[in-house]
């Protein structure tokens, strides 16, 4: 009863806030509806198009197609899992609401469940919407009946995401329990290393390029089931089960669908019960432990009397200097910032080391173009994730101390530009490195010259490949500036000075809207790049000279809308900082 009572009032609060009827709120709600609605429709068409394209044009076959879905679902699963873990730490151990509830006669288990569900639904609402739109596009291509969507949404997608959240909270509870005995920094480092090694291991074991090469040996019989190619370690993962459910649904093997669905639902239920049991046993004691973890600041990074110290002189003007130093210390001393940053950088390194060592031996220009574009867009997606996670919350992180900026002789616009510069310079350099590394397999083609794999020389790439690689390396920084501007501008428009947790700010409604707009831009980039990429790979196969005008077309097609997005983002962002505070 207590549980339902609290849930009722939380819902009431949510609806009262959501249904406020002032002009600003109505405009925002209409804007959100348009963006979310457009995105849902766009996701539907995009998923439908990609399915049709890969199966009909590139002809990768049903098996490979569903294995790619499985790999995407793995990334999705890890993202939900890590996101839930970091946000759960804040909502379970750093929340004033928990502090308040602990002083009331509500059981610890009830408090845990309320905050866990709050956390899950807060961070998963948009993913459900996107997931459903993508499923609709997929299902529409295969002309699947209504019960497919019902099963996929409630029997597959919800348990799949809930499973990721359950694992996250179990790991967190165990970590916090261990924290009373083991150094917390050591634990965090251990868990970060564990996740990184697991992701690395997954992509090593399920090597997508190897899989493509193996399946393509059986061309044109690529719709057959090549289950023997699946490594055993991959088969125990929920993302594999989901891809199997989808594969067997479209091949009408409902026995297998039932089997995998039951496995997923039962695993989720089992893990939820396990999470409840652990929470019942340790939640309160771990909450007490969390009070003793005062700070996760790395002592060796305190940089006393260094150039980062406020007392030291630099060549910057006083205002620029103190703002930069303040940003630096706020970042270094906030665990949810630097831990997340380290994890993202580590994942990025794994991805880049895999991509830069790819040995691409694909036959058709379409398939080459698809692989090239997938890597290109994934690079941009990574940059966008960093911009959303670290750029979007930057103005909000001024918090209630924003009065210091508005009441002193510094303009809010100056603070905005300083913060923007920090993010854009860092991500700009990173984007160039990423772009260069991911073009290595195209620019430095290896040819084995001896008996051992390491005995190789490099083949001079064709002019067409050079053209494509250099153009992507040049436009990537421009795309980065655009994405950082979008995240920064809208981060200011949707600034929330009350919320202190940067992860929650980066998963708020405004952040979701920004993410959706970024994805629209990414799809636009794909559209712009698709035809030149295919044409250039076709020209390469036919040993034709590249058409250098293509470069101009790419620049103009990407450059003009990017500049418009940059200008609009900064204009609305800076204007929003002049609102009454």
């Amino acid at each position, binding site marked *: 009863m207590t549980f339902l009572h609290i849930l009722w009032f939380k819902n009431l609060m949510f609806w009262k806030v959501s249904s406020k009827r*002032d002009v600003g709120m109505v405009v925002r709600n209409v804007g959100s509806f348009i963006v979310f609605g457009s995105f849902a429709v766009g996701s539907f068409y995009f998923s439908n198009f990609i399915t049709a394209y890969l199966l009909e044009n590139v002809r990768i076959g049903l098996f490979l197609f569903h294995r790619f879905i499985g790999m995407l679902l793995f990334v999705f699963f890890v993202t939900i899992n890590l996101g839930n873990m970091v946000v759960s730490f804040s909502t379970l151990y750093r929340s004033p609401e928990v502090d308040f509830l602990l002083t009331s006669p509500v059981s610890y288990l009830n408090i845990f469940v309320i905050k866990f569900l709050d956390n899950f639904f807060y961070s998963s609402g948009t993913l459900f919407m996107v997931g459903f739109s993508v499923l609709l596009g997929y299902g529409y291509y295969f002309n699947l009946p209504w019960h497919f969507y019902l099963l996929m949404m409630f029997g597959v997608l919800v348990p799949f995401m809930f499973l990721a959240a359950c694992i996250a909270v179990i790991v967190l509870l165990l970590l916090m329990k261990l924290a009373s005995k083991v150094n917390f920094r050591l634990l965090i480092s251990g868990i970060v290393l564990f996740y990184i090694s697991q992701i690395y291991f997954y992509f090593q074991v399920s090597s997508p390029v190897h899989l493509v090469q193996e399946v393509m040996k059986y061309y044109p019989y690529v719709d057959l089931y090549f289950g023997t190619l699946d490594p055993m370690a991959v088969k125990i993962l929920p993302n594999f089960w989901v891809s199997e459910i989808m594969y067997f649904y479209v091949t009408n093997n409902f026995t297998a669908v039932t089997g995998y669905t039951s496995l997923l639902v039962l695993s989720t239920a089992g893990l939820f019960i396990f999470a409840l049991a652990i929470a019942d046993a340790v939640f309160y004691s771990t909450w007490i432990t969390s009070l003793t973890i005062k700070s996760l600041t790395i002592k060796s990074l305190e940089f006393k009397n260094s150039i980062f110290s*406020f007392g030291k002189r630099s060549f910057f003007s006083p*205002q620029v200097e103190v703002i930069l130093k303040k940003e630096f210390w706020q970042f270094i*001393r906030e665990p949810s910032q630097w831990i997340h940053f380290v994890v993202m950088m580590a994942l990025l390194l794994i991805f880049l080391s895999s991509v830069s060592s790819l040995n691409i031996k694909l036959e058709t220009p379409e398939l080459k173009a698809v692989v090239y574009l997938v890597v290109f867009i994934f690079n941009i997606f990574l940059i966008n994730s960093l911009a959303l996670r670290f750029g979007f919350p930057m103005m909000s992180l001024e918090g209630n101390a924003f009065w210091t900026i*508005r009441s002193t002789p510094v303009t809010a616009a100056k603070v905005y530009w300083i913060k923007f510069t920090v993010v854009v310079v860092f991500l700009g350099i990173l984007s160039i490195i990423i772009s260069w590394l991911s073009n290595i397999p195209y620019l430095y083609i290896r040819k084995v010259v001896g008996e051992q794999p390491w005995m190789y020389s490099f083949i001079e790439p064709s002019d067409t490949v050079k053209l494509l690689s250099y153009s992507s390396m040049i436009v990537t920084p421009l795309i980065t500036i655009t994405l950082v501007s979008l995240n920064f501008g809208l981060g200011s428009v949707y600034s929330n000075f009350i919320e202190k947790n940067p992860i929650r700010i980066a998963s708020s409604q405004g952040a979701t809207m920004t993410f959706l707009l970024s994805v629209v831009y990414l799809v636009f980039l794909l559209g712009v790049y698709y035809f030149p990429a295919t044409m250039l790979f076709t020209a390469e196969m036919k040993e034709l000279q590249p058409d250098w005008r293509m470069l101009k077309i790419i620049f103009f097609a990407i450059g003009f809308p990017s500049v418009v997005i940059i200008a609009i983002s900064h204009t609305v962002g800076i204007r929003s900082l002049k609102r009454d505070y």
Partner: protein
Amino acid sequence: MIELTNLTKSFGSFVAVNDVSLSIPSGEFFGFLGPNGAGKTTTIKMMTGLFTPTSGRIAINGFDVEKEPQEAKATFGYIPDHPYLYDKLTGREFIYYMGGLYKMERNDLKENVDRVIDLLELASWIDKKTEDYSQGMRQRVTFASAFVHKPRTIIIDEPMVGLDPRSARIVKDSLKQQAKEGASIFMSTHILEMAEELCDRIAIINKSKIIFLDTRENLHLHKTKYDGNLESVFLELTKEENE
């Protein structure tokens, strides 16, 4: 020197500050009193650039706050009603940060940071992160950060919130010191005794309008009409407006 001319602020149909005009000369300690929701904080937020006035003009030390905001802001220090600081900075770093925003050069800044730390007796805990501070400690750091650039005008919103008696005494003494050094002080407060003790002139705002404006001496004369108590004057004046 502070000049408020026909200052008005509306939020939709609600008028929070209605046609307020005040003139506070240099060196004056000015008390701004009023019940909850009377318009004190809104007036102060307009003076400090946190709110844009709906109409009217604010000039601080000769600079129009709307037209020359940077010049105006360079001449005053502001202490808000809630002392929000950056949690991850230490108190000393916060004062340095504020000094930097006021464009203070390094040597001058270091000297003045040490000065305000001494003035407000912050030395024993100033190098801890502000997330570990009590409300009173935060309040004292905010005072220090407002004094660091030696402002010609100090604007304070409810200075005694959360201060223990010793901290309150330190703050009062530091304000007296600033006034003695020639700064004009605009202070909103609920504590009538404090206004009576420190202020040269007092204004009372109620329901968005100024209903009383006079010197401390004349206020004393006014008190004698009642029971000699400032609280009675305040209650009577605000009651009259309510009825």
